[in-house]
């Protein structure tokens, strides 16, 4: 069933047991993003130190795709340099806009390749990107903050 290509086991796992969900007290920046067409929201805290993403924590309401994607993203970028995580994000964005033509590089994207199926459902791509956009925004703010 086509649905299984969208809702892979990995995604449902992350959805039911999201990683790094629950806002930490420490943070260098906090952002709040919404998806205006459905009302889904994410609040995301980031800590950056020496150019490395040392922590991500988040909270929010959203569909399985947005929750899982944010959970997977958090796992992926924590411990990476900001620059590296942007590279991962570029790969992920490409995958999302591939309309089902790409599978994604598991070495780079790890669990996020499970989201490849989302790219066949244009209306859901925004869901998958919500947490990533929040991360990007937060990282920019954290860096700006640290440069003050």
């Amino acid at each position: 069933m086509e649905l299984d290509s969208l809702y892979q086991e990995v995604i449902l796992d992350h959805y039911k047991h999201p990683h790094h969900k629950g806002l930490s007290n420490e943070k260098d920046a906090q952002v709040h993003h919404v998806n205006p067409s459905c009302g889904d929201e994410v609040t995301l805290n980031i800590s950056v130190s020496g150019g490395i993403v040392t922590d991500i924590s988040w909270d929010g309401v959203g569909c399985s795709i947005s929750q899982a994607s944010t959970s997977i993203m958090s796992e992926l970028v924590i411990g990476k340099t900001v620059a590296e995580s942007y590279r991962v994000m570029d790969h992920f964005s490409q995958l999302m806009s591939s309309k089902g033509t790409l599978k994604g590089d598991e070495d780079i994207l790890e669990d996020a390749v499970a989201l490849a199926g989302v790219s066949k459902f244009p209306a859901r791509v925004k869901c998958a990107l919500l947490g990533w956009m929040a991360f990007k925004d937060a990282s920019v703010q954290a860096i700006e903050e640290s440069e003050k």
Partner: protein
Amino acid sequence: MKTLPLSAVEIKGDFPIFARSMRNEKPLIYLDSGATSQKPRSVIDAQSHFYEHINAAVHRGAHLLAEEADAAYEGAREIVANFIGAQANEIVFTKSATEGLNAIAYSFGSAEKGSRLSLGRGDSIVVTEMEHHANLIPWQQLARRTGATLKWIPITSEGRLDYSTLEEIVDSSTKILAFTHQSNVLGTINDVATLVAAAKSVGAVTVLDACQSVPHFPIDVKALGVDLLTFSGHKALGPTGIGVLWGTSSILEEMEPFLYGGSMIESVTMTQATWAPAPRKFEAGVPNMAGAVGLGAALQYLSDIGMENVHSWEKSLTDYALSEFAKLSGVSVIGPLTSENRGAVISFTVDGIHPHDVGQVLDQHGIAVRTGHHCAWPLMKKFGITGTTRASFYLYNTISDVDSLIAAVKSAQEYFKV
């Protein structure tokens, strides 16, 4: 199975889109008419016919085509007027209900200081807590621009207006009372008579958002007693890009125009202009002529079937759907639980499954619903939710469509193991 007031199966045959298939080769079960309706063959053909045989700019030409285009366009205006019990010169064609509501708000905003329609500090505009953004944000902005205050009538947990607050909220400061006839989320049909009486008692102008009512049950503007009313053609089997603004002759005469340009003027110099009488003064530019003609064909189609029949058929569907929903566990309907004063729009939430994910599973079964906040975000917040899944019915839906919906909701619960 009950006897049907009309044969929805036969009606489906009038709508070409039902010949297509959806994902997994499933037939289309269209339950998103609250967002936009499908179009019968006669509407599609009326538009094509206009372009193939008549097309010319109305109001302007000195030739046979322009004459015929004028007759077609003004003929459509007559059909609209008859459909809602109005006079033709009270019918203004807009691009949508959204434009109609903004036009009213802008017009009031340009009213001369001191005139009955002008607003300022100390005045208030009243809406309800269940409004679509289109009948909320224009008033927020008008309030902001004029210094007036925006107030609203709250809703009960069942999704009805709390009429007990009316006396307190609609007071001598109230200049405008704008409300929806039927909620696009809850299905609630508001008590127009009570609201109009409250407005009249304080001399406020009433504006009715009839987007979800004109397509679904018989409307007589005179009986409703409101001053202004607006709806979109595309939700009433008509083409996209055409809507209607109706007002009493007297309020249309009082109102300032909204869009300025060709065909709405009486005379023009480089420095000033005067206006043609309504409806002309509200229709600047070359209008959506084919759209108006298509809307005429749509309302004609509905009249031929009879709006009483449409209404009672939708009522049967609602009754049946509500009773089937009541049997589901883990599913809550947001809005009134009986079909009394309630339209064929059913919003629901499924425990443990986000509306997006419900919608996705339904889509796999060929069922088209809408998910999210339905452009009524404050209403969602009121219910403490981010969104719902909404099934909205129309004359082409059948009892078997309801059965498919219920079965698909169950399958979503199974799929997500909730």
